[in-house]
């Protein structure tokens, strides 16, 4: 209300009806809660989002419309409200059909001196949450797939230690060292566990492969964490900038049976 008064031209008079029409035209819910956190005012967008008529929601506690799992967070937020608070909270609203809508609410005191009433805006973020869920599911699925493979997928720097920028969890199965131990040579490098007699062969053949920008297949010996020696198959290729500069190497190491 104060904001609307401030922005309008002094000569322009905004009637209550116009003000209500402006608030009703918004695509976010605008809401006022009293000292018991009951709904005192709602715009039309509430009905668009929830399907619940505004008149049925008025004078009811806002928590009546929240998903039960989100009520503890809502209660905590109300307890933490202070004069300068401008809080943000995500929750699920239960629609008239029983479906859920993910929402983001911004809430604040209307007057700095008194704890009530509170004003709030609610934005429907369900599509955004659904998109995030799909992205997360794809990422999670890929990550699980990579980590479960009985092989060591890696991205390494082109140096004599083959410093690992990324290494999959399968490295523990192949080498006996965990991904954390191998990452950025934090404890050990791939170069240091390659058999000393094979180290030059590996280095030279990788450089030849990088020069030719081809995929290279190498077989060499590795010393595992328990001291045993195994033969591995390393299939990799270079990562290049547009100008052809070698940025790193990506590949997969499997134990030869």
């Amino acid at each position, binding site marked *: 209300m104060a904001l609307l008064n401030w922005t309008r031209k002094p000569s322009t008079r905004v009637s209550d009806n116009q003000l209500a029409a402006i608030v009703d035209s918004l695509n976010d819910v605008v809401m006022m809660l009293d000292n018991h956190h009951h709904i005192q005012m709602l715009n039309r967008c509430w009905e668009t989002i929830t399907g619940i008529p505004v008149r049925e929601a008025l004078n009811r506690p806002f928590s009546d419309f929240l998903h039960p799992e989100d009520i503890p967070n809502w209660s905590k937020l109300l307890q933490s409200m202070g004069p300068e608070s401008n809080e943000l909270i995500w929750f699920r609203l239960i629609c008239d059909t029983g479906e*859920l809508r993910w929402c983001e609410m911004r809430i604040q005191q209307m007057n700095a001196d008194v704890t009530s009433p509170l004003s709030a805006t609610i934005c429907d973020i369900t599509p955004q949450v659904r998109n995030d869920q799909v992205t997360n599911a794809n990422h999670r699925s890929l990550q699980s797939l990579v980590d479960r493979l009985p092989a060591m997928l890696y991205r390494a720097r082109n140096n004599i230690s083959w410093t690992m920028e990324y290494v999959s969890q399968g490295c523990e199965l192949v080498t006996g060292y965990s991904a954390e131990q191998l990452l950025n040579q934090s404890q050990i490098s791939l170069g240091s566990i390659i058999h000393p007699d094979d180290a030059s062969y590996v280095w030279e053949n990788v450089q030849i492969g990088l020069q030719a920008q081809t995929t290279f297949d190498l077989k060499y010996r590795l010393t595992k964490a328990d001291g045993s020696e195994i033969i591995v198959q390393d299939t990799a290729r270079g990562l290049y900038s547009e100008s052809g500069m070698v940025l790193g190497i990506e590949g997969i190491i499997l134990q030869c049976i």
Partner: protein
Amino acid sequence: MISIKLKLWQSIQEWVINLFRGVTKNATPSTPLDYNDLAFTLAAASEISKTLPLVLTRFQEQLNDVLVEQQRPQLFVLFSQPSSSESFLHHSQDLSPSATFIQSIHRKFTVGRAPTADVIDIGTDSNSLKIIPKRLFEHDNQIVWLLFAFHADLPNPKLLSWHSASIENTLSKGLQAWHQREDQINQAIEAERAMYAAELHDSLAQVLGYLRMKSVKLDKLCDAPEYQALQPISKDLANYTQCAYHQTRELITSSRLSMQSDNLSHGVINSIKEFEHQSAIVFDLDNRLPLNMLTPQQSMQMLYIIRESLSNIVRHSHATFARVVLLLKNSQRLEIQIEDNGIGIDPDAARTDSFGLQIMKERAERIGAELTINPGSDGGTRICLNLTIGDDV
């Protein structure tokens, strides 16, 4: 020397008690409480919800004996679990706290931050109460409080401390020992179940897996015209071996399920996490159930059915989205929906799954629930499980 001190101490205590008795109405001498005995009773309780009220009744009687009526508190022990938003309020047998009072206690101690004030006002329908809370101890995300509720004025703090110290000490000792004992029992049960599950997995399940392969092969060989007469037997053999294999796998899963969680919500959350890592399906959990409303047996059967449904979704549905909804349709009826947007169930094609569906139905019947499988609203499959609450198994 020691005996003289002891005698002197007892006489002072008796003198003070008698002094307070002197100002109470109908003061009748009662046998002194054996605090060690009460602590032991609590520690050895098999059902704490029955034993604790008995012990509180003894303490309440003692306080009623020594304090004037206006200063008598009502005793409560609160098990507060802020992480799961659960409160369990225990009281002596002659008290019956109102629902409003219980809700207020739940809000003040469990929903909000743990109170730090020495005295807390609780307004109820009829009157207001003053609560003096004593935090006894914390165990496994559960805070145990001793609450003294006063209708009228608060007594002198020193007087209250004098009478409450032994009560606090006894409850603290007894309940801590009870918690430790419960933990030990649960650990022992879990270890036993884990052992049986591992044993079953390594022995019988392996043999049945082998038999399953061989019986299917035998059945295929019996397709040849010269063995046609054997085919009904070979088919039966293959089917029953498959069923036995499935049931054994299910037994292993069940023993793991009962280890995983005590309540349905946690079990479903864990199961969804597990299946999420096996696929790119988006799983959505909509859990609107109050906690601990089912018996462990009901929870476990429900959880099995949900897991079997999720497993079918991952293996056969081709779905990209699955939703699990747990809700109360009304105060009497619990409904669980498991819906996906996949290709739906073809009743003629799902021979291998038919054992799974059959066992799901059997499990539903075991707890008096109704299982229905229908096409989903937007394609896919919708499994509905309805249970009337209160029908114990």
